[in-house]
């Protein structure tokens, strides 16, 4: 029988036997699945043992949201105690407990460098926008990568395997808002689910108004497809190289009617003022950027709201809202949080602005109605906060 340290060494041999011949040194690791709601006692047990055997991260490592915000960790219930222990051990083994799914907003990501990340939306963002070499790793494998400083060189990390195989032409007559961008990600992702079906997406006009729409597009794509990379013409780093080496196997055309049809099906369009008391509006999946949080709070101003509005973001973007009913929540995300259980006390209906969140909430929350919301106040803010995100010359 071997101890845990020995087994981690043996994992490399096992991965070799599984076909991963090479291992690459990583820039950073990002671990998903650290919420107690997800990992349960089994996850805590592994973390305890890793800590007990003196293992420490060998590279800068961050982690995903926990099951509650940091202030609630001081509570004395069982979930808070367990989550507190997870965060405590992660810190002890050297993880920077940022508890966010957008670590890329606070890090300099370098092209063609390797990242052992396991949050699918973040993986899609850094590989598609910065041309970082990463793959959708399971949480425990990114944890082990953090401890060893290297990751297996999977297929997608080989340059010749990153050339796009699907040409997607989007015949858009306007920049897409965050919901439309999410719907586009859903359409492309559900059409091409396989890992190596890398799309090259060409837009007729500037595609996304803001970075929040880009995040929405990629998070949604990563929800439906196993592929961790999308090349966006004019936006992705090195898109010219990828365009010239495209191995075109199929072509998909999407026009605004396709997107509008899906939006009509999934979304309700209204102002936040029109929503009643027992309604919860959730935004920030992926976590909103600092700029977006401030812009949104300022747009809400002194609006009188009957509904509750929860804005999820990273701890670095925390702002205390002055408006009653509006909460800025850090360090957690609705889907992996314990707050999801208290929603029924608060509302009969959840509105979300995220296709990814909609996908998961409809699976987990069976007895509440979930809808996508295009709220005038949110969309106008997110779309206008810093002007349109223009394409580079193509």
């Amino acid at each position: 029988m071997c101890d845990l340290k020995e087994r981690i060494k043996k994992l490399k041999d096992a991965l070799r036997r599984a076909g991963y011949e090479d291992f690459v040194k990583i820039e950073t690791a990002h671990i998903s699945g650290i919420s107690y709601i997800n990992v349960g006692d089994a996850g805590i047990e592994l973390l305890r043992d890793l800590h007990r055997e003196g293992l420490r991260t060998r590279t800068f490592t961050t982690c995903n949201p926990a099951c509650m915000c940091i202030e609630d960790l001081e509570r004395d219930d069982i979930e808070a105690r367990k989550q507190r222990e997870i965060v405590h051990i992660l810190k002890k083994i050297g993880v920077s407990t940022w508890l966010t799914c957008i670590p890329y907003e606070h890090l300099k990501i370098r092209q063609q460098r390797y990242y052992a990340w396991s949050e699918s939306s973040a993986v899609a963002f850094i590989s598609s926008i910065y041309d970082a070499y990463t793959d959708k790793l399971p949480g425990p494998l990114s944890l082990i990568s953090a401890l060893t400083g290297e990751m297996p060189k999977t297929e997608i990390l080989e340059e010749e395997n990153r050339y796009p195989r699907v040409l997607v032409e989007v015949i858009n007559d306007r920049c897409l808002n965050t919901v439309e961008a999410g719907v586009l990600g859903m359409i492309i992702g559900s059409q091409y689910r396989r890992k190596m079906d890398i799309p090259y997406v060409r837009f007729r006009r500037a595609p996304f108004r803001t970075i929040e729409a880009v995040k929405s597009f990629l998070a949604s794509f990563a929800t439906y497809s196993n592929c961790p990379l999308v090349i966006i013409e004019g936006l992705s780093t090195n898109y010219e190289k990828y365009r010239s080496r495209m191995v075109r196997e199929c072509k998909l055309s999407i026009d605004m009617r396709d997107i509008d049809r899906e939006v009509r099906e999934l979304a309700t369009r209204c102002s936040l003022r029109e929503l009643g008391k027992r309604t919860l509006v959730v935004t920030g999946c992926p976590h909103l950027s600092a700029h977006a949080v401030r812009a949104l709070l300022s747009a809400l101003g002194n609006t009188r709201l009957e509904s509750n509005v929860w804005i999820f973001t990273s701890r670095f973007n925390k702002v205390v809202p002055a408006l009653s009913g509006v909460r800025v929540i850090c360090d957690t995300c609705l889907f992996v949080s314990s707050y999801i259980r208290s929603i029924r006390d608060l509302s009969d209906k959840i509105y979300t602005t995220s296709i990814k969140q909609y996908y998961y909430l409809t699976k987990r929350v069976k007895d509440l109605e979930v809808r996508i919301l295009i709220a005038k106040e949110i969309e106008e803010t997110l779309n206008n906060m810093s002007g349109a995100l223009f394409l580079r010359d193509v």
Partner: protein
Amino acid sequence: MCRVIYMDDSRYRICGRAVKLSYITLLGDLDPETGTLSDGRSIRDRVLVYIQAVGSTVGSYVLYALAKRGNKPRAVLCVELDHLTLVGCVLGGIDLFQIGKEEYDRVVEGSEICVEVDKINREECHIAGDE
């Protein structure tokens, strides 16, 4: 086809009664506290045979917890090797073998099977009934 992916010690023969599934969701189908599947079958000291593990990445932790509680199977045999099974088995010290679809099809639920590791090339193995 039968390949050794991970062995926690240097045995040449691992035998046990087969518990066969097609796909397994480690988080949800498997209770680490009791070592039983959601359909009531125990996997403790059995040979667990499936095509592939799917679902939450937390699945690896479940295999680890299972082993910690002394409820681990004698071996896991899978057709399509996935990261969840691989990481979970290695950390939990559970012997792991990759088999072909033909070998998978030949395994009969509840029958006694043995994995015999090649004495010269320890990366190769074959599946036999208990003789």
